[in-house]
């Protein structure tokens, strides 16, 4: 009873148990205040350059920016290709056995059928990759899902930090002129780790 009265007057309790409870309460209040004032942050590492692997980083990064978060994507290895000025990405059915093979047009019943195309056909038949890519592009269009290029533009517009890996350029003999000028920095592992250290969410894609 005595402790409750002391809390109401906001004075610091003098007995040990009361002081302990008072400190807990104060700490909770302070932590909640800090959490509310803090801008959440998302740091993604994009390592793959195929269309299916390009969607998650661009969708999550643009959405995080829409939520008012600090959002950044570090593009490395095959992921760096996603920052090329001339963006030509494909989806590969080879080594992607769970990829559904469905028609993006035609009668409703046909669109629901998952065509079982053997992996040796999907992987070896010339032109199959381009065909699958065209089908996927058509599917995203009819379903109202934005294209990778559209999402990339939204990321740039909404202030997502697009960071590129310096080593990858040398590794694959790229020239920096091949990449979009909106890249905010060319960095290495150390700089990336330092910047991602305090991120609330860090994803490797």
């Amino acid at each position, binding site marked *: 009873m005595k402790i409750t009265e002391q809390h109401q007057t906001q004075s610091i309790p003098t007995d040990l148990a009361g002081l302990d409870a008072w400190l807990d309460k104060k700490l909770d209040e302070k932590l909640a205040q800090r959490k509310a004032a803090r801008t959440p942050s998302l740091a993604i590492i994009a390592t793959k350059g195929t269309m299916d692997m390009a969607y998650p980083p661009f969708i999550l990064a643009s959405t995080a920016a829409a939520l*008012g978060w600090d959002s950044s994507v570090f593009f490395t290895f095959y992921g760096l290709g996603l920052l090329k000025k001339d963006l030509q990405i494909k989806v590969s059915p080879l080594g992607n056995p769970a990829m559904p093979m469905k028609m993006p047009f035609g009668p409703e019943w046909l669109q629901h059928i998952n065509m079982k195309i053997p992996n040796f056909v999907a992987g070896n038949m010339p032109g199959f990759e381009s065909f699958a890519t065209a089908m996927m592009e058509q599917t995203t269009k009819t379903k*109202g899902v934005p294209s990778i290029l559209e999402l990339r533009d939204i990321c740039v517009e909404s202030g997502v930090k697009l960071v590129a890996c310096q080593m990858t350029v040398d590794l694959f003999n790229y020239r920096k002129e091949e990449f979009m000028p909106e890249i905010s920095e060319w960095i290495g592992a150390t700089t990336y780790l330092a910047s991602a250290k305090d991120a609330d969410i860090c994803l490797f894609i």
Partner: protein
Amino acid sequence: MEAKQTLDARGLNCPLPILRTKKSLISLQSGETLKVISTDPGSLKDMSSFCSQTGNELLSSQQQGKDFEFVIRKA
């Protein structure tokens, strides 16, 4: 109540309804309302998460046939 602005996000899929909502809110003053119409069933949960994360107030959220209608008051 008539919303200050209406965003037609019908036919758009994740994450576009949210991204367009964010863009539309930029042009509004604090306290003004935006009506969003979408067909993406995911936008029901996403719109409420968007509002709780950004501090904007979700005044209403309802289904009208195949459409979902949201009214948001800018913080």
